[in-house]
């Protein structure tokens, strides 16, 4: 496997992961756009970022839980005739949770009791770990419909890069734990359990028994969905860990994001999973490392007035020319320092996947599909 193009042509799901601020969302969108344009088929980019940035980059007003097709006019405006279709969706965690409840609860009465429970409303809206789980669950749901040839997923910023991989297990564990059974046991037998007494007393003093009852009631309701839920989370796990799924680890060449990328690749390897590609974003141009140009810059910085005299008056007033030469030299050397650090960072990468793509620092922003495709082309070719 030598290129991102070949990798994406062979897989059904590509999960983009990495630290915050490295361009994960944009990379996911660009890869999906390229796949739709040049590989063909139906390609979906699914973003789970609560900051709703994908719509910006795709030039769309808004994205929601339901997939929408990027219109032909947007494609035309970008000057492409796509071989396939590009679709986009943004995870709405609350709505996805509600759907999950509707699917698994035994009857309508339970559905509405769960949906109305204040604790549930809080959890489905804000439960951070739930977000990671629901993202994978939604991916599973969409993949199962068989509508798309390729789904590119942008993962939520997590405290821990592996959180979303482990989310299905944790969710299953959560719902099968003894603690949950204890909490949902009738209050009297709970009080009688000797081991639980200190906690109950403390918890009662701190939180009040009403709150504990609310929690118990909530989990009692949730337990009705237990079997479906556990089975489901295992299916989600099989999909994410399966061979049809690949991972695109995204980073910049800065210290912290790269450390996280390395950690993530090691962790994937530890799980027996194969990181498909590493994308190194926002790399400064290689010419900044050129030894000859560096020497020239040092000359410009040091000898501005003398060089201005050699150039004569054609460029402008000598003092101004000297000033400009000095600035130009200085600026090259400044950016050169950063470029050297980036190069060092790259050599320090201990292990790397087969596909490593370097994407240049674009000097303008990506605000439309045309820009995304420009990035996409460099993802395709930047081996």
């Amino acid at each position, binding site marked *: 496997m030598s290129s991102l193009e070949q990798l994406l042509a062979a897989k059904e799901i590509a999960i983009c992961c990495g630290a915050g601020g490295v361009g994960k969302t944009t990379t996911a969108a660009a890869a999906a756009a390229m796949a739709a344009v040049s590989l063909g088929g139906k390609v979906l980019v699914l973003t789970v970022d609560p*900051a709703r940035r994908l719509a910006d980059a795709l030039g769309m007003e808004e994205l929601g839980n339901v997939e929408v097709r990027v219109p032909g006019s947007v494609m035309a405006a970008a000057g492409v005739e796509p071989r396939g279709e590009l679709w986009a969706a943004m995870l709405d965690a609350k709505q996805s949770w509600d759907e999950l409840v509707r699917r698994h609860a035994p009857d309508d009465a339970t559905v509405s009791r769960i949906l109305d429970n204040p604790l549930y409303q809080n959890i489905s809206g804000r439960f951070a770990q739930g977000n990671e789980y629901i993202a994978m669950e939604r991916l599973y749901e969409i993949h199962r419909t068989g509508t798309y040839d390729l789904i590119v997923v942008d993962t939520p910023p997590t405290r821990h890069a592996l959180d979303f991989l482990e989310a299905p297990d944790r969710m299953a564990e959560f719902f099968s734990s003894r603690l949950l059974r204890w909490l949902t046991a009738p209050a009297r037998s709970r009080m009688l359990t000797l081991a639980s007494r200190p906690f109950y007393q403390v918890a009662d003093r701190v939180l009040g028994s009403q709150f504990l009852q609310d929690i118990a009631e909530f989990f009692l309701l949730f337990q009705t969905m237990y079997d479906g839920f556990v089975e489901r989370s295992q299916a989600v796990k099989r999909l994410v860990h399966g061979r049809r799924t690949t991972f695109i680890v995204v980073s910049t060449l800065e210290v912290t994001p790269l450390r996280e990328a390395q950690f993530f690749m090691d962790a994937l390897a530890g799980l027996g999973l194969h990181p498909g590609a590493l994308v190194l974003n926002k790399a400064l141009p290689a010419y900044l490392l050129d030894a000859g140009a560096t020497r020239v810059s040092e000359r410009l910085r040091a000898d501005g007035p003398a060089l201005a005299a050699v150039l004569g008056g054609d460029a402008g007033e000598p003092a101004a020319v000297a000033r400009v030469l000095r600035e130009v030299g200085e600026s090259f050397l400044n950016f050169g320092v950063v470029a050297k650090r980036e190069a060092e960072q790259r050599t320090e990468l201990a292990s790397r996947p087969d596909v490593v793509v370097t994407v240049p620092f674009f000097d303008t922003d990506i605000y439309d599909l045309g820009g995304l495709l420009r990035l996409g082309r460099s993802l395709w070719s930047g081996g």
Partner: protein
Amino acid sequence: MTVDLLDRRLLFVTGKGGVGKSTTAAALALLGATRGKRTLACEVDAKGDLADFFETTRPAFEAHKVASNLWLMAMDTEASLREYLHLQLRLPTVARLGPLARIFDFVSTAAPGVREILTVGKIGWEVRERHYDLVVVDAPATGHIVGQLTAPQAINDLVRVGQVREQTGWLADLLADAATTGLVVVTTPEEMPVNETIELVARVRSETRIDVAAIVVNRVLPELFSGADEAVFERLAEPALSDRLADAVRGPVGPVLDAARLAVTLRRTRAGHLDRLRDSLGPSVPLLYVPYLFTRGHGLRTTGQVAQALSDELGY
């Protein structure tokens, strides 16, 4: 006029991932300490990054002194619970919470706001007890900060009785007092971070009572040429002159000129985003600019440079 940034006693520093949130938090803490305030820097996302910025050992729940007037701690909700139980409920300090910890873990996963309240509660307590003159929190990123700041209210809504209920009141008041508490949002002059900052400020203003104390714009690129000098540069870049220059320096001039053009374009694109940020925030929030440091190195030296830039911006 708003309260001077460092005259507040509690600053939450947030921002989109990758914009330099932790650097800024470290720099503000360092600045506070050098200005004679007993300062606590508190890391909430247990990544240990803050230690790098002070070149010290990984912080723990127990604050340790890293410089004159400067202490560093890392939030640990379990330790916070233990301290709370000990101080507020006068329970004996237990070395190991054991099964209680597992149950707590479970409840805090299930009940939103419990983990957050223990974080904000511990920080608020340090402020209220005046253990420090200034507490700077390296807070969660933009996606999670509102949840953290609204935790006292959320708990108030969910828990109707009990001791927690009594204590969320003062905490909410402390957070809402602009003379005491402020939120600092860090951004870079790039499209997505600016969008996220604008969205966050709108959410903070509508969903919380906390005051947005300042926006720190990090990595502002230098202006390469003044207006007239740019015309000089354009003439130098024409083949006739650039060839003559290449002869004079006996080396490749093309990449050097390309790099200058890249620097100019980058600066210009970013200026547009800065204008957008200023227009959308209005004059009530001060913007503090920190220049791009051409080092990308972590460490105390960088923290000092950022602190100096902030000090200049604050007019110290």
